[in-house]
């Protein structure tokens, strides 16, 4: 540690914890898991590849006539490690090909919800092991990008159904990905309508208000909420505009620069997800969604044990559990108190 200007005799030096933590963090790296939910052709893979400026996933859309049409939603996670200035992130992108692609889309969300819950369950299992890893592998979904259809007048019936369920288990960020077919007026009207409908259905999307928020946080979050849903344009192609190379799309009537704030909210979305709220996304997943899951699971186990004990006392057979709890060997009777929810 170099001599600090605060180095008077009263300077204790515990403020260097931030640097110590940073060094630990740099060594360890972190996990970031994102799930993409939307019809095929909504621009999901292009967008995520644009946000992280690397070709992370291929589009799963049907391209050749011989390719069979998927009959159900598939879950396809792809993991890669990215590095930036010494910081490593183990990035998992979960695509959901087949979602909402059929004539009858009843239940198409079920594999998605199940996958998200399974990650919570897996984490809980690892956490409850008598001999657990020093750092528990985190596969929990930290962000769900939900893709809305541009041109619809508002939320579709399927959107309402699915958003209600998704927001209960993960942080949801609503997005219009191919917004280059909407004029500015159309976008504004669409955003206003979506916000009204989300409020009406009491669908709460990320970021959530918190008692811990400073004034600065509140202002930032308010400006984020203004933008929702983010109207973005993604592109992996680099084209020349006025002598400069930019990521964009070349139409017959003009060129879109995805980084241009007047063209799309891309920069705002990227900054929001990665530059201002990244640690929030990870933390809130643990403190809010995982905690809710954990509480309900452990309560069920407790109830089951109570029932079994009661049945044993009366000499009858233990009743069947209504819902299978995680196959975790119980920690020796010590139940952690769930943290108070944000």
């Amino acid at each position, binding site marked *: 540690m170099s001599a600090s200007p605060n180095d008077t005799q009263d300077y204790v030096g515990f403020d260097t914890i931030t640097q110590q933590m940073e060094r630990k963090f740099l060594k360890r790296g972190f996990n970031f898991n994102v799930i993409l939910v939307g*019809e*095929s*052709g*909504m621009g999901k893979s292009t967008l995520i590849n644009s946000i992280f400026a690397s070709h992370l996933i291929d*589009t799963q*859309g*049907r*391209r*050749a*006539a*011989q*390719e069979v*049409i998927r009959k159900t939603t598939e879950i396809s996670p792809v993991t890669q490690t990215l590095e930036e200035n010494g910081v490593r992130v183990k990035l998992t992108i979960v695509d959901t090909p087949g979602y909402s*692609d*059929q*004539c*009858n*889309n*009843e239940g198409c969300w079920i594999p998605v919800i199940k996958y998200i819950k399974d990650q919570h369950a897996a984490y809980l299992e690892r956490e409850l092991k008598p001999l657990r890893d020093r750092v528990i592998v985190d596969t929990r979904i930290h962000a769900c990008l939900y893709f809305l*259809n*541009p*041109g*619809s*007048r*508002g*939320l*579709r*019936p*399927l*959107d*309402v*159904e699915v958003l209600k369920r998704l927001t209960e288990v993960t942080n949801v960020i609503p997005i219009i990905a*191919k917004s*280059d*077919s909407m*004029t*500015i007026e159309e976008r504004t009207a669409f955003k206003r*309508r979506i916000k*009204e*409908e989300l409020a*009406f*259905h009491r669908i709460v999307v990320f970021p959530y208000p918190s008692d811990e928020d400073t004034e600065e946080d509140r202002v930032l979050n308010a400006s984020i909420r203004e933008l929702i849903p983010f109207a973005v344009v993604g592109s992996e192609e680099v084209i020349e505009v006025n002598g400069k190379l930019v990521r964009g*799309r*070349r*139409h*017959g*009537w*003009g*060129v*879109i*620069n995805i980084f*241009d704030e*007047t*063209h799309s909210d891309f920069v705002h979305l990227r900054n929001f997800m990665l530059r201002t709220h990244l640690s929030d996304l990870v933390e809130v997943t643990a403190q809010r969604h995982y905690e809710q899951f954990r509480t309900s699971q452990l309560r069920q186990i407790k109830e089951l044990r109570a029932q079994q004990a009661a049945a044993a006392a009366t000499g009858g057979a233990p009743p069947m559990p209504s819902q299978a709890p995680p196959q975790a060997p119980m920690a020796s009777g010590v139940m952690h108190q769930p943290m108070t929810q944000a």
Partner: protein
Amino acid sequence: MKDGSGEDQNVAPSVYSHVSRPGSHRYKNAKKGLPFNVMLVGESGLGRTTFLNTLCERMVVAKAEKTNTEQAHIAEPMQFKHHTVEMEEDGMKIILNIIDTPGFGDGIDNENCFMQIQEYLETQFDEVLAEENRIKRNTKFKDSRVHALVYFITPTGHSLREIDIEMMRRLGSRVNIIPVIGRSDSLTPRELVLFKQRIMNDIAQYEIPVFSFPNGEDEEDEETVEENAELRAMMPFAVVGCEEVVNEDGRPVRVRNYPWGMVQVDNDEHSDFDRLRYVLLNSHIGDLRDRTQNEIYELYRTEKLSGATASGAMDDMGGLQQAMPVA
């Protein structure tokens, strides 16, 4: 949305006016006008309503602002909404009957939509069949058989979706289907070319019966044959619809204003709309009507009279069932 595109003098003249096919205007009574029934099918948000208004050059349907937030999540069942507009194309009077289908594909389960449309199409045939068999026929009988069904495809850039394939396969034998790509301004020129190719590959692969600008049996006119080949190469038509008209160098043009540029609906490099309009209301109006009468209706009639189909019964593969013979 600005209106005012209804005045005739605000309409940009179609560039194809000078190419009118000889003999295509076969109609009995010039004064009454030629009835032409077109159905528009596609999910909401693909520009169906805008297409309707742009086609008719007037605000036939005002874009309904769904003011009711509480209603938004309720899947409205598909409806058939009729609009009649008198048009004049190249001196020919047309009674354009448009059947719009708001609600198509908007629900979670959309299997029912196909059945409804099929029933509608067959009901019109049944009415003609009944009328033909009357001893005393109605001279004022209105023929409401659908001559063309414009089907809007989502501009995904991939291939056809299940709903697209099912829809066109099941209904292709009951009506001339003209597939179009809605909101095509979301695709770059290169993406559009690839998308069109993939769609046509799907159409071939799945044997989807769409209207493919067939040449007449005795068609000798080279120009016509060429024109049909050209139109086949353009399929599916990429449309951008818009009601907003601005004045460019004194000429009225329909445009969509984006921060990065302006899409001109009438510009052939931006959209196939003008060409499609000309096909529907001018060059191929006769072909579409004739094919409906001479091939599609005749096929239905034969099936119906020989008891080959129970009404409205089509199996999942889109083929025609061999049902019980009529007693």
